[in-house]
């Protein structure tokens, strides 16, 4: 979805920072967004205040609120998918390779017997 959406804006995605949390992805204000998401998902009390201030300044308080909600949504979806063992979509194989990630055998994009 990220790659598809960024391509509609004629942008190019560098996915590695999505794993490392550091670097430029090609998305506007990615530094502020990554810092805020890290603080929210990891429930980092020390980092939340500064990260919130950064995103408030960069994108506005409403955008910060929405960012918190999106992080919440994917904390839900991640659990639902991991818990039922949904295989990874074949289309993600190339993205995983680009990010230097190996798809675990138990999530391989082929049906697996229980």
């Amino acid at each position, binding site marked *: *979805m*990220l790659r*598809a*959406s*960024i391509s509609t*804006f004629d942008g190019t995605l560098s996915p590695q920072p*999505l*794993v490392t949390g550091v670097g430029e*992805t090609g*998305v*506007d*204000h*990615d530094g502020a*967004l990554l810092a*805020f*998401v*890290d603080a929210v*998902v*990891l*429930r980092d009390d020390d980092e*939340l205040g500064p990260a*919130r201030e950064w995103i408030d300044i960069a*994108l*506005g308080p*409403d*955008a*910060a*609120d*929405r*960012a*918190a*909600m*999106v*992080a*919440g*949504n*994917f*904390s*839900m*979806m*991640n*659990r*639902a*998918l*991991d*818990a*039922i*063992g*949904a*295989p*990874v*979509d074949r289309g*993600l194989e190339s993205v995983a390779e680009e990010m230097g*990630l190996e*798809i675990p055998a*138990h*999530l391989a994009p082929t*049906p697996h*017997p*229980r």
Partner: protein
Amino acid sequence: MGLFSRKKRDTTDDPTIDDTPDVDLRYDTPTPTDPREDFADLVDREWERLANAGTWWSGAERLAIASDARQALAGEELSGILPAPVEEATRRVAAEPASIRGTDVARWEMDGLDPYGYIEIVGIISRLMAIDTASYGLGLPLHEFPTAIGGEPTRTKPDGSAITTGWAPTVGPATAPSSLSAVPVEAEAMFDVHGVLYLSLDQMFEMQIEREGLSRPQIELIAARTSSLNDCFY
């Protein structure tokens, strides 16, 4: 009011009358919703769902699962009131979801946890994590749990549900939209949360959509980083 309003006016040759068309063409656009109000309404709906009997668990059991899930994520001791396989499933879904394997779900079933009951556990905890994570980012305290409401679980299974490409039952292949489909009310609740916090299913295909000033790529950046932090491949 209709789509737009017009004031009728007599236009004669009288020079004292301003002939400028007095038509108010401002559209009566729907009142923009406040995301924080939408979130508060969502919490109300979710808390009502949580307190009531579901398909496989009573309201008291659903609340116990939710409470233990919070404890597990905080690394604290669980209540000990849930049966062993339910407690383990609760802890794993809340705090270590990426560690779950098909062998775990099969073992829990052998120990008495029905796979459909497991799906409801996944629904309860995953939505709780959505609410709690968003609350934290919004600077809100964790919402106090409601009081259980009576009622009996219906224990119904939808036609066509089975274990297919995942390791728990779904209707059709195991994918994001079908993840909780073996317990339809849990799936509907997930879509409710999904629409308020992220995008509705219809909006998913709008690559240029914006929400509160966040572009779609920015929204998807948040989604991808969240998944990475949760050790989730999707």
